[in-house]
């Protein structure tokens, strides 16, 4: 008979083995994610002294974060930018995913996916700088247009504004948006599309009634994968955005590192998180009829 001690027996049960397997990840996540998050939450309800943090409970930081016109504007701009990026990216990603899934020979698909990931070979920072080179005052676009004589002086509106931020972020997140949609499209049984046509619908109608609803889980995933990180992006608005393109991450950085106001910076960060969570949940709620997946 097996007579192991209590711990040994525990790790041989299925749930025990499962816990043992995820524990390194879980510990890492607790230390690196939950602990800082807890610290931020605490800071956000403390008072800010001149050179130190006064450990007294207050909601003044939140009131400041939600009522100050400047902070509100930055938050709204951040939402606008990330929503624009999401819409642009997902709309552009869908045709690419569709093409690779439906029109590329199966033996070539992995090659195509490989090509789609090429932008990741360079660091994010370098890619952002490259967009600076492309869109800048003496950048590729301007000097090209000047050389061909289409314009007489460099365009100012293509750089250091919200539009430039959207362009740069949409490019950076394209692969993230393509892959979930591609996976969802790959899972669609091709005979379903033949069935749609067999039952009298045109190819386009079949797309609307069969392909699109079945691809929705991938679209939803893409939307969240693009929307959530872009709203907190720091590098692109900092380098490309100019003064008008600053987003919430830049504001947080300013409060915490430049002005040394940890409590207010934390309150803005927590508020931004709450807004992202609320919008994401609302979005999931709206699309839930597409997500009650088969089997």
């Amino acid at each position, binding site marked *: 008979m097996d007579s192991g001690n209590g711990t040994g027996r525990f790790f041989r049960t299925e749930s025990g083995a499962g816990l043992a397997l995820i524990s390194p990840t879980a510990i890492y996540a607790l230390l690196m994610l939950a602990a800082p998050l807890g610290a931020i939450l605490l800071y956000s309800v403390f008072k800010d002294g001149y050179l130190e943090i006064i450990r007294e409970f207050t909601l003044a930081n939140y009131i400041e974060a939600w009522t100050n016109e400047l902070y509100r504007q930055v938050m709204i701009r951040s939402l606008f930018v990330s929503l624009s990026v999401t819409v642009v990216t997902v709309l552009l990603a869908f045709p690419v995913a569709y093409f690779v899934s439906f029109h590329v020979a199966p033996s070539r698909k992995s090659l195509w996916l490989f090509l789609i990931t090429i932008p990741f070979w360079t660091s994010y920072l370098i890619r952002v700088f490259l967009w600076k080179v492309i869109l800048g005052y003496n950048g590729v676009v301007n000097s090209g247009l000047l050389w061909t004589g289409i314009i007489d002086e460099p365009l100012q509106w293509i750089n250091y504004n919200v539009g430039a931020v959207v362009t740069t972020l949409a490019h950076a997140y394209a692969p993230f948006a393509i892959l979930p949609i591609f996976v969802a499209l790959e899972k669609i*049984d091709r*005979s*379903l599309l*033949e*069935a*749609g*046509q*067999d*039952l*009298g*619908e*045109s190819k386009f109608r079949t797309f609307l*009634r*069969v392909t699109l*609803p*079945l691809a929705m889980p991938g679209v939803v995933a893409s939307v969240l994968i693009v929307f959530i990180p872009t709203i907190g992006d720091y590098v692109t608005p900092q380098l490309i955005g100019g003064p008008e393109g600053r987003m919430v991450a830049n504001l947080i950085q300013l409060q915490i590192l430049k002005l040394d106001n940890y409590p207010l910076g934390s309150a803005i960060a927590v508020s931004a998180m709450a807004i992202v969570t609320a919008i994401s949940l609302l979005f999931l709620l709206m699309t839930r009829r*597409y997500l009650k997946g*088969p*089997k």
Partner: protein
Amino acid sequence: MTIEKPEMIEFRDVHKYYGDYHALRGITASIRAGEFFSLLGPSGCGKTTLLRTIAGFEGISSGAVLIDGKNMAGVPANKRPTNMVFQSYAIFPHLTVEENVGFGLRRDPRSKDEKTRAVAEALEMVGLKGYGKRAAHALSGGQRQRVALARALILKPKVLLLDEPLSALDKKIREQMQLELIRLQREVGITFVLVTHDQEEALVMSDRIAVMFEGEIAQLADPETLYRRPASRKVADFIGTMNFLPAKVVAEDANHTDVEVAGFGRMHLSKDQVMAGNGGEGASVGFRPETLTILFDGQQPTDRESMGTITEVVYYGDMTYYDVKLDGTEEPMRISMRNVFGRPVLDIGTRTRVAWSPGALVLFR
């Protein structure tokens, strides 16, 4: 006055190439209105390709496919008077049973209530009354099959195409569905075209069967003719079991052929027993296992009789299959005997009398 249209589908010298691969090699055949027609053959013989040319999922390289007298060249799948039951059933997983069945009714001019009623009737017809609100992915294989049938039949197509619809089902459910499909077909009177690799299924269900090998129709006939008078050795081998013995043609005239077969002696065969297609290996005769009979003590032969030794016994419950090596032959013959009450199952090595009749065999040359 009605004009009789006996032909629902007509293939005129249909060829199909996939690159260099010649998938359909000159199919010429017609399927009659209201019949249960099967395309039977091993995998890769082109039967599914042929079915898909009717549905419009597959173009043809040359020739013509006509449905109800109209050439289907250039007519897309959604404009053809055909509906299909797919091998995988192709039930839309994001829709309920009801929405699946009503999928093709979008442009139907009837009111919403009438459509709802039509859907309910279609579900009742396939034995799924009350299942309308269920999620499609919560159904069993047999139920999906029925949904696929209802979804196709509700559109009242001229032709219903069935692509190996029963191959994914358990034996019991499969046999039940076979009978139900026959009943449905008689009820609705629609032309059914079934693709199958299961010869038994084809024999049970069909009015006529086209046996296909390598992109060609080897024989097109009703089940009984196909079984009793297979047009070639290949067809005979594919449908059921057949014993083949080398034969020598010794005399022939316009109506009869005389052959000499080792172990059986000389036989006088009528013209309809003589088939072409022995695959260029001289001549051979074929016996079905049930056309040979083991004679038990005291039984009188019906026609002729030979002696042999049992070399193998396979017991199936209702039947016993014996391999019997007849005196003077090289290979044993397979003989099936029904296990009627009181009849013993014989042992290997038993000497036995075997009765046979020249009328039951087929000559391939």
